[in-house]
């Protein structure tokens, strides 16, 4: 028994817990540098960056939560998980690039308007780098909403959840409540506590995102994450130390905001009671308009992809022209010829996703249940930390081990967030597996392994595959930790894309943005296909 337990907890511990703890232990003392802190706080852009970070992070998260709820509500009993999975496949960086191509002063929208308004030169729109960060907020909402929808859908698809809610909804309707009233009073209050993980992850991500902010965020001042990232990469040791202090302040800000939101929730209890105990209400007709939200998301992403596809083959595209003058496959040829980064990204994603799923399953199956909470907490904690902090810590760890620029370092750098996501995605469905099956199976076969292989795991195939696809997508999108660990010896697609984006070759940027999307998209489609029950596969 003890041996089994050890084997159960070892993989996840080695892949995830131990490296995380070691990374933090190594990085934190170095960051506690009073001089660096003082100089970060004295940075002329610090106050502005702090305000901008809080503003964009909170507003972005808040709007994403509201829109995702509206979408989940409007969908009623339709399953949103498959549609939303496709959105997850789109990396943040790709979306930001495509969105910029769409709305910038020389973007497609301006080109569409040009003949109507008689423009010959691009309008002086403040659509990117707007000082308030509204474009960044829009990009965050566009990207995080489907993630939340997907998390809601995953929750709603759980057998136990679905059974209970279906019955409760039927009862609530018979009591005279309309769908909106039921959503607010019956469904939402039961979903939200279970959504703490994804919600925290979205807030943390919105506060700490680097790549999206670089593409569509303001620069004077930038967000705190951008400010720290710029400093961190400075050749001057004191400036780099200031960047480290920035990373630590950012981490503290994330924890503080999460704590404040958590602390504010009990204050809402009277409001909650009034909501729950209010009389039956039928829906206002206006709510029916919400039904257009989800299709709108498909349209926006479709437009973003279309613009990127157009940009990727555009040889020359002077302003008022709606279409490029010539088409060229040069950028795509480059992607194919330089297949190294593509292959590295693919192999890494496959290896990290598979090992994370194996480690998570081992943990969930054999580790004591008490340990689940610890693992889940650590995973959520890891995802709350800015990737800057974790990346720096891993970099210190790899330096100490002397393995920077080796394949193991690259694997470890990628597997950490992958394992965290896979564990969180899988834990719910795995733990809600109806224990009565164990009893039923015990009567049929005595061998526990046979039960797992023939009954339990096949029954859990959809969530296991979904977790694998999520892990795959997370791995593909890694930039900061990958860049630091690779030490230039390896290149992955996002590293290539970010490097190229400094060069301003739009076709090449667009090609890489689309290429970056392709891998996870295929993973999600495959997971969706193989995850459905056998009898539904055509």
């Amino acid at each position, binding site marked *: 028994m003890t041996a089994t337990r050890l084997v159960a907890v070892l993989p996840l511990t080695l892949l995830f817990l131990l490296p995380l703890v070691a990374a933090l232990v190594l990085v934190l003392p170095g960051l506690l540098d009073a001089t660096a802190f003082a100089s970060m706080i004295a940075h002329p852009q610090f106050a502005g960056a702090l305000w901008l970070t809080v503003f964009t992070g909170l507003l972005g998260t808040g709007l994403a939560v509201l829109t995702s709820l509206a979408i989940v509500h409007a969908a009623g009993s339709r399953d949103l998980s498959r549609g939303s999975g496709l959105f997850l496949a789109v990396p943040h960086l790709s979306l930001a690039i495509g969105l910029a191509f769409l709305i910038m002063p020389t973007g497609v929208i301006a080109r569409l308007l040009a003949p109507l308004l008689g423009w010959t030169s691009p309008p002086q729109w403040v659509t990117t780098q707007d000082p308030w960060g509204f474009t960044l907020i829009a990009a965050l909402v566009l990207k995080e909403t489907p993630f939340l929808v997907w998390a809601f859908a995953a929750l709603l698809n759980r057998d136990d959840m679905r059974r209970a809610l279906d019955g409760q909804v039927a009862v609530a309707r018979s009591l005279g409540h309309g769908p909106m009233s039921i959503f607010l009073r019956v469904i939402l209050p039961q979903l939200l506590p279970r959504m703490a993980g994804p919600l925290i992850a979205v807030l943390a991500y919105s506060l700490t995102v680097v790549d999206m902010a670089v593409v569509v965020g303001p620069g004077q001042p930038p967000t705190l994450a951008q400010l720290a990232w710029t400093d*961190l990469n400075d050749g001057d040791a004191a400036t780099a130390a200031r960047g480290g202090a920035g990373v630590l302040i950012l981490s503290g800000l994330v924890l503080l905001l999460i704590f404040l939101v958590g602390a504010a929730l009990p204050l809402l209890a009277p409001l909650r009671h009034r909501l729950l105990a209010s009389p039956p209400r039928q829906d206002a007709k206006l709510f029916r308009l919400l039904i257009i939200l989800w299709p709108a998301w498909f349209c926006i992403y479709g437009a973003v992809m279309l613009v990127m596809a157009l940009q990727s083959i555009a040889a020359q595209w002077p302003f008022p022209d709606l279409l490029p003058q010539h088409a060229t496959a040069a950028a795509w040829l480059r992607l194919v010829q330089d297949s190294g980064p593509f292959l590295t990204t693919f192999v890494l994603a496959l290896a990290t996703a598979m090992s994370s799923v194996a480690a998570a399953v081992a943990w969930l199956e054999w580790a004591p249940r008490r340990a689940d909470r610890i693992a889940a907490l650590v995973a959520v904690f890891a995802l709350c930390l800015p990737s800057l902090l974790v990346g720096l810590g891993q970099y210190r760890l790899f330096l100490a081990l002397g393995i920077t620029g080796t394949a193991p370092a690259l694997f470890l750098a990628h597997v950490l967030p992958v394992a965290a996501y896979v564990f969180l995605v899988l834990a719910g469905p795995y733990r809600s597996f109806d224990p009565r099956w164990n009893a039923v199976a015990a009567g049929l076969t005595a061998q526990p392994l046979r039960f797992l292989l023939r009954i339990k795991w096949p029954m859990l195939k959809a969530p296991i595959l979904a977790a694998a696809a999520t892990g795959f997508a997370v791995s593909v999108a890694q930039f900061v930790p990958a860049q630091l660990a690779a030490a230039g010896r390896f290149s992955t697609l996002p590293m290539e894309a970010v490097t190229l984006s400094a060069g301003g070759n739009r076709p090449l940027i667009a090609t890489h943005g689309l290429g970056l999307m392709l891998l996870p998209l295929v993973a999600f489609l495959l997971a969706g296909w193989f995850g459905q029950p056998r009898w539904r596969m055509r």
Partner: protein
Amino acid sequence: MLNRRRLLLTTAASLFLPVQTGTAQAADWPAIEAAAKGQTVYFNAWAGSDPINAYIKWAADEMKSRYGVTVEHVKITDTAEVVKRVRDEVAAGKQDGSVDLVWINGENFRTMKSEKLLFGPFSEALPNYALVDTEGKPTTRQDFSESVDGLEAPWGMAQLTFFADGAKVAEPPRSIAALTRFAAANPGRVAYPAPPDFHGTTFIKQVLIESAISPAAFSKPADRMLFSSYQPVWEAMLDALHKSLWREGRQFPKSQAEVTQMVADGELLIGLTFNPNEPANLVAAGTMPAGTIAWQHEKGTIGNTHFVAIPVNARSKEAAQVFANFLMSPEAQARKNDIKVWGDPTVLAVSRLAADQQASFANAAAPGSVSLPGPALLEPHASWVPLLEDAWLKRYGKG
């Protein structure tokens, strides 16, 4: 405080310094070439430009076939990352470092030199160094007023150059004052990248030089006191310009490449570059129209040299030297000089080369070539950079 920190760090770093093996300049060149065979050079070089990447790929292929040396282009966005990586590796005691050769100059060079992170001296012992025009191009020995001391090998020449579509800009503004008038007449259509992007930093250095009556002081190390006597005029000049910049000078494009793209799109009217041949290169690539014009300021613009250097913990020091030597060869320099390839001006004294070699450096007058040249001005000493960047950020970095 900043300097004391740096000093402490330097002392700390020097404790970890490996004993110099001395193979570099003492050993004869054939021995180095022999040792280089089979080695791999990880060449860390900024990769934001396709023509440059393609050129490095060509050079790598040549190294493989001629010397049996494998060159891997490690594509980076900012050379400062490399400085940081080498420092961290040396501090961690890593002898087989991840960087064998780095494309570098200016402040990054000064940092690596002062922290003793560079291998050498080696460059003046390279066979092709004899061809370098050290008299005509003094910046090959003084990098941002910092003595090179053989710690980096000159690779190419640069001079701040402006460009525009001639159809839209009839009379190019050839001074900061003229540029300010131009911007006032075309509000929102002029911009420069925000420092610390190095084109942005160069631009504010150019403003500094043009704001001073006698720029001689800038070649000496700066301090806050000295800077404060130049600061008001410099700021007044920037203030006047910023009023009519893109986004009224409240936001700035993030890189030179972004500015170039915006010029190509017609969103901005004037672009800037450190490579005088880039405008012609852009015309050749179809990014800019054939009527593109390029110019330098009447009283001159900042010019400098860019180099390659070998970190102290490089694993393939021999191969790195062979590659640095090849990059300085007339053949490699001529190809680099070709506008259709890259268009980066040579560091060699072309007049001292054989006639046929000289011919290979001739660039046919291409559309987009610099038509109104100005003299090359020396970079201010590297110590001015943090002062200027800090002052700029304080005044203009808050939106």
